[in-house]
């Protein structure tokens, strides 16, 4: 077995190479920090078993963030393994800095120069570079199988030939004299000496040394001088700047950047949820009904009778419940399609730049944008990307805020309830819910920043990737992955949950089946009725609505499927489900648009699903997950109550009167705050000198 570790700077194509080598389909993107944990698999090449590990990107062998620590720890603990160092041909100078770090560590290195851009920005004499560095160099495109075969060959041969003598001539230019004060300094390896001069915490604690040498600048200076020398010898002049584009004059314009982003977001939402998405979703629902569900339902009725328990299970739990969620597949696919284009294009880094200073006001950074945007797709995977954050508090904060984003599992709820109660105004309701999630997240971030989770360092440094034309193969691979995951969730969690819920809602405590004519109370109904008074002030105190919310803790899609099942909907047709919500005898019904809106707000903000919960536990710990969950419930309850009260007031008194009352209330609050500030200033006896008064 040959062990290979893929190491390189962020966004150099490590995961692309990993996928090509192994045939896997791991997530890749044109953004720094897509990979946040190690991944490994084994593949065979010419009768050799090769175990390859893909690590998060690093700039240096001294880690500065959580995902970098994962990578460097792995390298230190496996320094006898073969390292394939991936470099981006367009950014060779910076990438070689890490290569030198790996060579200092004494590892076996093969350099794979990945020509990500089709038009390289400089010509490189690889033979000369190989000779100067003294290591094997393979160059090619990480996504091309044929070119990657040469790397496989080099990996196999490396094990046979072994031991290439690395050349690190710059070592003689490093001033090691500050280490003279140490006992046994001569016994230290070159790597240890350099790391001590760089004040690397891990090496210092391993050697039990407390002294600070503060020579990090000297080391970087010497190494970059050496890199500049070898680049000068084997590369011609750089033709253009990595990551610079004429497009940025418009997309990063101080005044146009934000409106352009918002416009793009509106177009994406419109296409996904309304025009194209709705058309495809309705079509799929119709096809499922005509081809699959109606014949299946007829067959079951003819075999088992209309009133049998099995017929009820198939019609309500499987056809109605699962079918209603399955018809949202095109919209989920479209949302992920647009998100993957966003990730692949390189625009994401520009969004991070645009939003960084706005987010800095609430204690977040531009890097949070990636996590929060990915939260629109799936909160579970988005929470993991919070590892990119430089400090612990920012990581916890970003992790806690991600579930407030409207993930793809929530929009079936918005579409079903919104369509039933708001008709053509549904677009405003859905957009409003998306915005509400963001606003609540921003407000909470501000509160966290001012109280317990103050960001220690506002250290936003982000490299701009070049714009890339959409790689259809990659985008469709990612799309297929998400479609597969959605169908798997339906086939596993949602089917299982629906069967459990069907059992609980169709059997009494004495385990007697409740047919449609029976008036007995089910197990779930009893449980729902106990909890329903808690939700009565929010306008949806029916046992069905409460049970659907509880079921939604497993996966948010279950809310729609359980509503369909409780209401006895026997088709994948969306309008049948929507009509059932308006009937007062249905298990889940809403008396007014106000109570439906309140339910939607609660669904948006309450606890995340079990999968996200478990990732949060792992990433931010038990204490903060528990605190976060309590906050989520309180915020959801309070927001739903406020929205319900406001909406009811509008229903009774009309929009104009409620708005005028709100305006007066806000005016009074602002005046009181202003007055308080003025009084505070006057009360200060040292108003001109104390520094606290901003006069």
């Amino acid at each position: 077995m040959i062990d290979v570790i893929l190491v390189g700077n962020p966004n150099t194509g490590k995961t692309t190479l990993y996928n090509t080598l192994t045939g896997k389909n791991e997530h890749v993107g044109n953004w720094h920090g897509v990979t946040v944990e190690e991944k490994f698999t084994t593949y065979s090449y010419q009768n050799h078993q090769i175990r390859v590990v893909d690590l998060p990107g690093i700039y240096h062998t001294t880690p500065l963030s959580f995902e970098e620590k994962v990578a460097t720890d792995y390298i230190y603990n496996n320094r006898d393994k073969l390292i394939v160092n991936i470099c981006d041909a367009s950014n060779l100078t910076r990438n070689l800095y890490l290569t030198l770090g790996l060579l200092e560590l004494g590892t076996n290195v093969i350099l794979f120069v990945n020509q990500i851009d089709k038009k390289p920005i400089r010509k490189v004499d690889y033979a000369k570079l190989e000779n100067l560095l003294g290591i094997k160099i393979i160059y090619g495109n990480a996504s091309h199988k044929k070119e990657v075969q040469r790397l496989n060959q080099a990996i196999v041969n490396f094990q046979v030939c072994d031991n290439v003598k690395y050349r690190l001539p710059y070592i003689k230019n490093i001033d090691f004299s500050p280490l003279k004060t140490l006992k046994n300094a001569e016994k230290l390896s070159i790597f240890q000496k350099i790391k001590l001069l760089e004040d690397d915490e891990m090496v210092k604690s391993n050697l039990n040394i407390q002294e600070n040498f503060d020579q990090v600048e000297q080391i970087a200076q010497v190494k970059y001088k050496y890199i500049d020398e070898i680049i000068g010898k084997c590369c011609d002049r750089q033709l253009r700047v990595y990551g610079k584009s004429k497009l940025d004059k418009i997309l990063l314009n101080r005044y146009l950047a934000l409106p352009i982003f918002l416009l793009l977001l509106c177009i994406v939402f419109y296409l996904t949820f309304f025009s194209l998405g709705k058309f495809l979703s309705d079509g799929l629902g119709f096809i499922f009904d005509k081809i699959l569900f109606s014949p299946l339902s007829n067959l079951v009725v003819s075999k088992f009778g209309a009133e049998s328990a099995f017929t009820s299970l198939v019609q309500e739990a499987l056809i109605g419940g699962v079918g209603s969620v399955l018809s949202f597949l095109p919209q989920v696919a479209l949302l992920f399609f647009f998100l993957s284009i966003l990730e692949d294009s390189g625009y994401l880094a520009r969004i991070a730049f645009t939003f960084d200073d706005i987010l800095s006001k609430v204690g977040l950074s531009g890097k949070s944008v990636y996590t929060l945007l990915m939260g629109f797709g799936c909160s579970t995977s988005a929470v993991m990307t919070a590892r990119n954050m430089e400090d612990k508090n920012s990581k916890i904060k970003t992790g806690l805020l991600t579930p407030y984003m409207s993930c793809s599992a929530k929009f079936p709820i918005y579409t079903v309830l919104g369509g039933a109660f708001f008709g053509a105004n549904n677009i405003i309701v859905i957009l409003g819910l998306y915005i509400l999630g963001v606003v609540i997240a921003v407000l909470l971030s501000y509160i966290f920043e001012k109280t317990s989770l103050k960001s220690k360092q506002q250290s936003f440094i982000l490299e701009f990737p070049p714009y890339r034309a959409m790689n259809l193969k990659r985008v469709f691979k990612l799309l297929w992955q998400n479609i597969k995951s959605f169908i798997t969730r339906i086939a596993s969690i949602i089917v299982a949950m629906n069967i459990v819920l069907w059992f609980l809602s169709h059997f009494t405590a004495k385990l007697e089946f409740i047919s449609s004519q029976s008036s007995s109370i089910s197990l779930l109904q009893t449980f729902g009725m106990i909890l329903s008074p808690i939700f009565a002030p929010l306008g949806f105190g029916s046992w069905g609505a409460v049970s659907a919310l509880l079921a939604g803790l497993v996966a948010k899609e279950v809310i729609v499927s359980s509503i369909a099942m409780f209401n006895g909907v026997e088709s994948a047709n969306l309008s049948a489900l929507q009509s059932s919500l308006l009937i007062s005898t249905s298990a889940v019904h809403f008396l007014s648009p106000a109570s439906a809106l309140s339910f939607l707000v609660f669904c948006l903000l309450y606890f995340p699903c079990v999968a996200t919960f478990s990732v949060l536990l792992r990433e931010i710990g038990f204490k903060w997950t528990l605190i976060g969950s309590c906050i989520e419930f309180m915020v959801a309850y309070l927001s739903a109550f406020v929205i319900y009260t406001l909406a009811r007031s509008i229903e009774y008194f009309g929009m104009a009167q409620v708005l005028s009352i709100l305006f007066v209330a806000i005016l009074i609050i602002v005046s009181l705050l202003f007055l308080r500030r003025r009084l505070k200033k006057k009360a200060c006896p040292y108003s001109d000198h104390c520094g606290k008064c901003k006069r």
Partner: protein
Amino acid sequence: MDKLSKIKMNKSYLLNGFTNSLPLKLKRRLLDLGFTRGEKVVFCNKSLLGKTYLVQIRGVMLSLRDQIVKGLILE
């Protein structure tokens, strides 16, 4: 750069070191990214509120928060 208002867009500056106010962690990351003495730094753009800068160094584009820019000694 003490006064950020002095920074002119699309003008190149020579990096002459770091101020003591810059935390070691950030200094280290900047050095990893090639912010070494004598290197040419070009400021290309700044964000809406002017707190984040887009800089060009060693043929690469990077965005930096103003607090980091304050920690650079530029000429």
